């Protein structure tokens, strides 16, 4: 006689092992789409897209971190969570950065990959036991709405991209590839069991980041960003600092590039870099918001140019990160002084921005010291020497650039707008 078994409630649908494997796959997709966005950020030319991506990278990093933390709670070995991903999945994800323009980046990362991620989260939640797997459900139920918002924000920008009509072939090829690897919801079959006949459009050369960051083609040509003379009155100081803030976008591009170039760092590096990139994009938007309120248009009335980046980019991404860290080392004294000065003058919009920027720089100094030192093998003296060496490079670069260009037509436009503001003619 067979034994009687009482079947209580819902039958079991997913083991811990199955759940952890699925979450590991989704974690890796989040990590790699974030790294793709980081690496390509310096090549993105559309200004709205350039400012939007870092926020998405930060959100991606937080989703990835929640997944990674949860995987490790599910009897999953720490040494394995960042390893052993299927070669086909890795190959698919590494092809995303071979896009050739903003529209292809958006179509590959968002319209194919993030859309699939959205569907995968919905499917995971449908099959998840709300009690047994409650810790996963608690955070994952917020992922769908967040991805939906990302997709909607990007779709709006995509509509204005000039290359959008030519991105269809790239998107179709990636959709085909995604189908061939079995999508994101199931474990991919071993590579030798599949015959992948991928479209030739995917067989492109490896991505090479530019030495001078791309800027919006609608912007006037510039060769450096700060006015070449000191401000002579407070209203000029306000405008100069606004221009400086907008051009902090280079500081978003640097950690983005580093997270893509270095694929062998501890997970915390990617988490920190995504936050760093987002903070710097926020600082850029702080300046743009103030200048816009005063009647200045980015790239038209004042320059947007990645001069800091261009000054050392030939030396590589470590040089870029060390230069950024060197600039931020002097930041707290400078930004706290600006906060006090602008507050005393009654410009509380600027002083509040400097206050939050100063707070952000505290954590960036932590990141900068920790990760540049990591790359330099823990040699603190070498880091100090490198910072000094790169600051010298920058000083030489900007001195030469100041001699080559007189900052026109921007200086004329800035002075004209300031005169209008002083005459009370600004609306």
């Amino acid at each position: 006689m067979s034994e009687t078994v009482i079947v209580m409630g819902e039958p079991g649908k997913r083991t811990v092992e199955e759940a952890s494997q699925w979450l590991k796959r989704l974690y890796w997709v989040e990590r790699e789409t974030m790294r793709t966005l980081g690496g390509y950020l310096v090549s993105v030319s559309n200004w709205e897209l350039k400012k939007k991506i870092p926020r998405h990278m930060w959100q991606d990093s937080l989703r990835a971190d929640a997944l990674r933390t949860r995987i490790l709670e599910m009897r999953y070995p720490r040494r394995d969570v960042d390893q052993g991903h299927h070669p086909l999945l890795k190959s698919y994800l590494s092809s995303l950065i071979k896009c050739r323009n903003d529209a292809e980046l958006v179509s590959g990362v968002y319209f194919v990959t993030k859309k699939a991620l959205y569907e995968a989260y919905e499917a995971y939640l449908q099959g998840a036991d709300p009690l047994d797997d409650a810790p996963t459900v608690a955070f994952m139920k917020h992922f769908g709405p967040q991805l939906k918002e990302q997709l909607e924000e990007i779709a709006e920008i995509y509509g204005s991209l000039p290359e959008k009509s030519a991105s269809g072939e790239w998107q179709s090829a990636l959709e085909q590839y995604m189908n061939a690897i079995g999508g994101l919801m199931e474990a991919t079959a071993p590579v030798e069991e599949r015959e992948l006949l991928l479209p030739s459009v995917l067989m492109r050369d490896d991505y090479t980041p530019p030495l001078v960051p791309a800027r919006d083609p609608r912007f006037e040509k510039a060769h450096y960003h700060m006015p070449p003379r000191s401000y002579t009155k407070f209203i000029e100081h306000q405008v100069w600092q606004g221009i400086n803030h907008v051009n902090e976008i280079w500081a978003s591009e640097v950690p983005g590039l580093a997270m893509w170039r270095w694929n062998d760092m501890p997970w915390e590096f990617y988490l920190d870099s995504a936050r760093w990139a987002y903070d710097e994009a926020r600082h850029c938007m702080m300046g743009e918001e103030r200048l816009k309120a005063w009647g200045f248009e980015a790239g038209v009335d004042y320059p947007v140019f990645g001069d800091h980046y261009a000054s050392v980019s030939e030396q590589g991404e470590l040089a870029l990160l060390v230069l950024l860290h060197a600039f931020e080392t002097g930041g707290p004294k400078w930004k706290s002084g600006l906060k006090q000065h602008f507050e005393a003058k009654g410009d509380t919009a600027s002083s509040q921005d400097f206050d939050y920027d100063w707070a952000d720089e505290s954590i960036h100094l932590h990141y900068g010291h920790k990760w540049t030192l990591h790359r330099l093998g823990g040699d603190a003296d070498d880091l100090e020497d490198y910072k000094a060496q790169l600051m010298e490079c920058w000083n030489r670069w900007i001195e030469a650039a100041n001699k080559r260009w007189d900052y026109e037509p921007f200086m004329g436009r800035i002075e004209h707008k300031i005169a209008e503001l002083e005459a009370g003619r600004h609306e």
Partner: protein
Amino acid sequence: MNDYEIRLQLEPVRSFRAAAGETILDAAIRHGIDIAYSCRNGTCRTCIVQVIAGEVAQEEAESCMISAQELEMGRRLICMSTPRSDAVLAKIPPRQSKRTKPDESIGG
């Protein structure tokens, strides 16, 4: 409760008193001294100094961004340091660069 005389050999040189258990940065701020600082958690390294004389304890050193070697050399992050005696603190002098390592390449 004891308090201690702290002499900051920055520019300009300033002296002030810090209570036992009070961080040197908090004491400096309390006395209205203009000094570079940021995180107040021992992580950004903006306030790093060299102890020239006296005893200064690095509190919660394990969570601060300061190496054992730096502590050994008498360096302290004053946002997380408390005096154990009168003390003289100075800015860390710039190094003579000995950099010889090759750079990583962006295109490589």
